[in-house]
């Protein structure tokens, strides 16, 4: 899953640059993570002449739907110079493929750890980055790639103090956790035998 951050106002002002703008706000999956207040605040701060129309739609990342929206709002889109989209990156890229006008985005897309498909416990220690070679068997089912800020595969960096990570004091050192769990299972054989290297 992801969360959207509205870009800095000056940056969008510069893009619009007094051109006539058509605004799409996508309310599909980011439904769960609201950012609407910020957008309305920003749109209010623009002069009304600049904004031709604002439409709230959903799932513009689906090419069929966005084609449909372009047809429905054809009248007002034809009057505009640019299209401003508040959505994730996929939505903007899909709209760009269909539109004849320049498409700009007003958002940055951020990754939420632990969310993929269905909601899980949102936890930075608990995530999958789809790396393609799973190490969970050797590291007591704790992923060092997502839970260690340095993504170390061959053991702790040595910077941990009292079991806490040197990058974030509130975070436990994941390699210490792995060691403790392996001790519990009494299973050091695998990690001794296999040298973990990441294949890029």
């Amino acid at each position: 899953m992801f969360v959207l951050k509205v870009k800095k106002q000056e940056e969008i002002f510069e893009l619009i640059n007094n051109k006539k703008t058509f605004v799409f706000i996508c309310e599909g999956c980011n439904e769960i993570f609201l950012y609407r207040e910020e957008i309305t605040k920003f749109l209010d701060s623009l002069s009304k002449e600049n904004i031709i129309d604002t439409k709230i739609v959903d799932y513009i990342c689906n090419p069929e739907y966005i084609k449909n929206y372009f047809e429905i709002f054809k009248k007002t889109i034809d009057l505009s110079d640019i299209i401003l989209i508040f959505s994730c990156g996929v939505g903007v890229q899909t709209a760009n493929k269909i539109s004849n006008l320049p498409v700009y985005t007003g958002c940055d897309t951020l990754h939420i750890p632990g969310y993929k498909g269905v909601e899980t416990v949102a936890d930075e220690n608990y995530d999958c980055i789809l790396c393609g070679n799973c190490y969970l068997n050797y590291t007591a089912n704790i992923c060092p790639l997502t839970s260690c800020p340095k993504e170390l595969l061959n053991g702790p960096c040595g910077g941990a103090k009292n079991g806490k990570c040197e990058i974030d004091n509130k975070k436990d050192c994941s390699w210490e956790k792995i060691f403790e769990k392996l001790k519990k299972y009494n299973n050091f054989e695998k990690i001794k035998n296999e040298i973990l290297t990441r294949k890029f």
Partner: protein
Amino acid sequence: MNLNFAKFDLKPEQELKFLLKKKDDLILIVCSKCFVNYTSEEVSQSCKPVFEIFKRLNKKIKKCIELNFLCSTYINKEKILEIINKYERYEICVFSCGLGIQNIAKLIEKEIVAISNSIQPKYSYNSETLHHGISLDNDKFCATCGECFLNYTSGICPIVECPKSLLNGPCGGAKNAKCEVDKEKDCVWIKIYNILKEKNYKTNSKVLIRKYNNLLFEENKKLIEKNLAIRVKDFCGGVYPQENKNITQNISTEKFLSPQIVKIFLSQHIGKPSIPLVKIGDYVFLGQKIAKSDGFLSANIHSSVSGKVIDIKEIFHPIAKKNLPAIVIENDNKELKDYKIKPKNNWKNLNKQKILEIIFEKGIVGLGGAMFPTHVKLSSNKKIDTLIINASECEPYINVDNRTILENTKEIIEGINIIKFLLDIKNTIFAIEDNKIEAIEKLRSILPKEIKIEVLKTKYPQGAEKILIKKLLNLKIPKNKIPLEYGILVHNISTVYLIYKAVVEGIPFIERTVTIAGDEEIKKKYGNYIIKIGTPIDFIVKNSFNENFNLEKFLLKFSGYIMGVELKTLDTAIIKGCNSILGLIKKNNYSLYNKCIKCGRCVDVCPMELEPLEFVFSYQENKMDNLERLNMKNCIECGCCEYICPSKIYIVEIIKQLKNRF
């Protein structure tokens, strides 16, 4: 080996051999995958190579268990624990993406064997690319890098599409506009250059640099935490639709115009339809009983105008979705009241039996949506401990409860007292959502101390009975049981007001508050109106929406934005359970037979912890045998799944049809 998995791939045989050394008896847990078209053979087909390899390695698989969405703790926790207890001495192999493996590892105190590698969706070169699961042939990705460059690169993302993730232009290795890493791929930077030229984009004045520093990490973390805090965690699922309550929030209730004719259905409630007491040609007074209750679960119906009965005929019923008999009365606009309407100034002189009789006689039904006859609820023999007054109006647009609280606070308190007197209830909880600030303030100043006010965070479908109880009292009511059996009574705030009106003022249920709202484009006059039961829909449409409105282009929603039904004809009328008429821009692409892509969003938002995608699958493939196992009867038809569905399938309609067939 490349299986057709969306997110994971089987590990090579050699590695598996090493992993499963000395482990012979195995249990295999398979995730039935997300982001693939849902077909029947899918799982068994893709498991075949696993079985083949295990056979070659001489491993015995005791049992292979398939579960949907292993990454979800909500729906799979109990199932996983059950399996693990049952097969304690076996080794557990998990075939899923990294999230599913970690999820199971977290639940149990035992080492598990992952037999899969999680892979990225096709065509992407970045480790954190998102496949948003919209349409599977979509080749657009987002790396969720947190600093979008699309504005300067003509809407093509170089981070995802360029194998080198270059931000400052082509690397120079492209030959004939083909990438040097992958010869079948076009060079992204050449594409970007062409589009920049063609579409007249704003050319970049800044140097694009990707920030990998910690500062961004901290900032992101804060933002994510802030967003997660918005999400109320107390019950599973739920959605946060755009509320749009401000359209009618500050408009005080007024009487709607009196229609020329009214069409009063004989089925205004759950249960048996009423029996008509009038004939064609009879003159009826305002508030006269025109149909009587037929049996235990039924209610009386009264005329909402004075005039002549001109017809008793079948008209399209909006909720039942078929033609049902209705009494048609011509309004003479004299408003001559029936002799039975007499105010009783002091209800405290009446005994319990008498009050119940009045409530039954005046035809009061619950306004929470189910239209359950109120006297049935109030005459229960069970001991009731807690009364919950439900004012959490979580549907968008609607302001009926909100306005009722603001305008009739004293009457509501009196109504609560009547219910408390009837059933000797001590505890009363007033549940209200935090978006009704004015109403909360007013209640705090007026409500007596023994009534507790619970301010809830806004989330749909909070107003549903069972969910409200779970939230307020932390009590889970099983399927096929009603809250009354647990000593809990839930009443909608508008019903309480009606009880007051019936008992004290002697007015039967002949009119109710309805919010009329919708899109700005078709606005004529929106607001909260007291509308007579039986007012024809075409009369309301004529007076509330302007000439742009037509059923082809716009959607007319009857009784709610999410839960409401779409009206396809104007030849119908207001019934007792209708709280709103909404005119909206039509939703596109919806169908009963759209393909499910198994994104799992419906599972994510379902407040009853069901798997709506399984119902869709059963319906489309006509396989009814596993519906019992999936607890379909638990479904409250809240519409969250349909609201969030990216494939735009009419899930609620499917569930309703399946329930009928069952």
